[in-house]
């Protein structure tokens, strides 16, 4: 297993697109955070507000990490490298587990770095301009920073799972991005029209995003941070398991 992990790690590191996506994933929220911290009145943002800004912008980070997860397997199908991969490691489950582990770990680490950088730089800038942003003052909202890191890990895995199922890079990325942006709105709207009461809390992405919501759990219309995150993870795990089953059974 260690050999397979090493091999997949080399693959992940030696494709430039992955590095570019990771840089954008960290850079985009950082730029937004820096601009916001420099342009708003420093008194208008406390620690909880900064956490909301960081977790809000880092949804983009999660998406980009999901793209890395999807491309990690779809590019193998696209360029045919899945064949030498499975020829070198005939136990396909070993390859898929190694890919899943690396995808999640990279997602967690990149998101954690991004969150730490954004909150750190944002608080320093706001405090230097007369603000008073103290991490300890954020109360329960602090869990949202941990939650958004976990969310990124799950979205990375979701991208990988969709990639295994769909096999095409553009199609997998389209589903990964359009489902939360458009798909759940349409499905939710249809379910409301069908007479269901507040179906959005049962839609996976809507439930999962509570992981990074500083106010999660405060209302009654959501599953809350822990149960919402768990629900999103279970849906992702099912998609990933189906993808793994399909990849194991089908011709490479």
């Amino acid at each position, binding site marked *: 297993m260690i*050999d*397979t992990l*090493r*091999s*997949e790690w*080399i*693959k992940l590191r*030696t*494709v*430039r*697109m992955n590095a570019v996506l990771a840089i954008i994933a960290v850079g985009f929220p950082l730029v937004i955070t820096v601009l916001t911290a420099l342009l708003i009145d420093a008194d208008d943002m406390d620690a909880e507000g900064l956490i909301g800004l960081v977790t809000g912008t880092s949804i983009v980070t999660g998406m980009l990490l999901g793209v890395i997860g999807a491309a990690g397997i779809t*590019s193998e199908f696209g*360029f*045919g*490298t899945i*064949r*030498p*991969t*499975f*020829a*070198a*490691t*005939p*136990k396909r489950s070993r390859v898929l587990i190694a890919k899943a582990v690396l995808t999640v770990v990279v997602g967690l680490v990149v998101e954690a770095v991004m969150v730490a950088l954004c909150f750190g730089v944002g608080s320093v800038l706001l405090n230097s301009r007369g603000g008073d942003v103290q991490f300890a003052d954020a109360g329960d909202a602090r869990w949202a920073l941990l939650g958004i890191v976990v969310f990124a890990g799950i979205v990375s895995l979701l991208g990988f799972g969709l990639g295994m199922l769909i096999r095409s890079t553009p199609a997998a990325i389209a589903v990964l991005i359009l489902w939360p942006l458009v798909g759940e709105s349409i499905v939710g709207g249809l379910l409301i029209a069908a007479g269901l009461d507040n179906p959005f809390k049962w839609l996976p992405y809507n439930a999962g995003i509570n992981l990074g919501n500083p106010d999660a759990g405060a209302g009654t219309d959501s599953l809350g941070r822990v149960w919402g995150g768990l629900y999103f993870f279970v849906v992702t795990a099912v998609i990933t398991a189906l993808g793994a089953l399909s990849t194991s*059974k*089908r*011709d*490479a």
Partner: protein
Amino acid sequence: MITVQGLSKRFGAKFAVADLSFQVAPGRVTGFLGPNGSGKSTTMRCMLGLDRPDAGGTTFDGQPYAQLDHPLHQVGALLDAGYVHPGRSGRNHLRWLAASNGLPTSRVDETLAVVGLTEVGTKRVRTYSLGMKQRLGLAGVLLGDPHTIILDEPANGLDPEGIRWIRDVLTHLAGQGRTILVSSHLLSEMALMANSLIVIGKGQLIEECSVGDFVGRYGDHWVRVASPRIGTLAEALRAGGAVVTAVDDITVEVRNATAVDVGELAARYQVTLHELSTQTGSLEDAFLKATSSVQEYTTGAIR
């Protein structure tokens, strides 16, 4: 030793490979021949567990491929030189392959040197020519110093020097007692390289024999005779039932008679011979004759 037993693979209703069985012995280069669409590549993919066969299986020295823990040490395979990420360097492509089987990076550099790609190893594969990709693929095959080698069209895209190189390499490796299975459409090349042949058509075995036996069975044979008195000799040959075709003023090709028959007749008629040789058709001719009934795609005449 590779043993393929009762292998079948179906795509929809169509059998790409149907109950195919053959053995590939060590110490020789075995050519794997068949017309386009005959199932060669599907067979190779099934052998390596990449395509799931509907029936049958393959063993390598008694073990199924899926049970090999570090297969690159036992079986080196190149199915398509294009199976590389174009954004990755050739060296990095080999690095992940090597790492997957616990091989050190030093082995990557060794094999790059063997295939002559050291200088371009750090360049991205998208800048490689087809021939360079073939060499990179062969480096991947050699990484684990395997006992069994499977190559699908390895000479495709190689220049004459490269083709000769791969022939020499495979012949050398077979001489070391390794098991080599090579498919190729370059039949002249196969004639120079292969000791044995496995010929398939429409997914079924047509022949499994030595190259000599195959050409002997399916190839054309005739005797070439040259003499200043060829007219006299030709008349005597025809009288004996031979078919004689003129090549030039002093040379004929004789069928339905052996060189011994022609020599005896020439002696009887006291005809001086300038040439008397048995001619055999090419592997290409034999292949076309053997597979004429199983061609998947036949060409029409150009008008």
